[in-house]
């Protein structure tokens, strides 16, 4: 398994958020169509479906590319990702008029440290495990 290391890094990166995204999406679908909560599911799904898994994959490719030079632990590397994702998600929510996200920006200050910790743990244990399984990095 010495070929295509960046492709393997990308696959290891997207392996974690993809099943988690299915769980989140199922929750939203239940809210929308079973409990009739007015959530704009079509517009809302763009960010978690298209952006987040690809961002994880590309972030893991960057981890592999930078690992030799920076020696940043994988947990810390993963914890940096919400610094880009959260403002990006908020901006997209405003552009797509997803009101329940855009109007609850005050909760962002509570959600932000939580996201940092969740990402730190997810990268340290889950992505690291996937990397080990696919023979990516050390």
């Amino acid at each position, binding site marked *: 398994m010495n070929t295509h290391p960046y492709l393997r890094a990308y696959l290891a990166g997207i392996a974690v958020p993809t099943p*988690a995204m299915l769980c989140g999406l199922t929750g939203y679908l239940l809210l929308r169509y079973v409990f009739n909560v007015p959530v704009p599911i079509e517009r809302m799904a763009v*960010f978690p479906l298209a952006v987040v898994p690809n961002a994880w994959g590309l972030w893991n490719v960057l981890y592999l590319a930078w690992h030799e030079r920076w020696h940043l632990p994988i947990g810390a590397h993963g914890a940096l990702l919400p610094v880009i994702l959260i403002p990006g998600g908020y901006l997209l929510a405003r552009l797509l008029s997803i009101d329940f996200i855009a109007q609850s920006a005050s909760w962002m200050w509570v959600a932000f440290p939580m996201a940092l910790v969740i990402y730190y*743990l997810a990268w340290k*244990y889950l992505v690291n495990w996937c990397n*080990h399984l696919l023979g990516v990095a050390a």
Partner: protein
Amino acid sequence: MKSNENEIQEMVRKALAPVNPELEGDLWPRMLRRLDEGHARMSWVDRILLLAVSAGIIAFPAVIPQLLYQL
């Protein structure tokens, strides 16, 4: 001319590693071993962080949609 061809063939044969078309036994036990090797024990600091996040989500359920959207 013929000896030249034979010489080239011999050189190519020496330069290329022999390819084994057969699998070297069952790959599944090796896969299981690799799955077992990857388990890292969670440190107490990380356990505290996990508990803190869980407590935070229970205390502020309004952040759940934000987290689901962002993560």
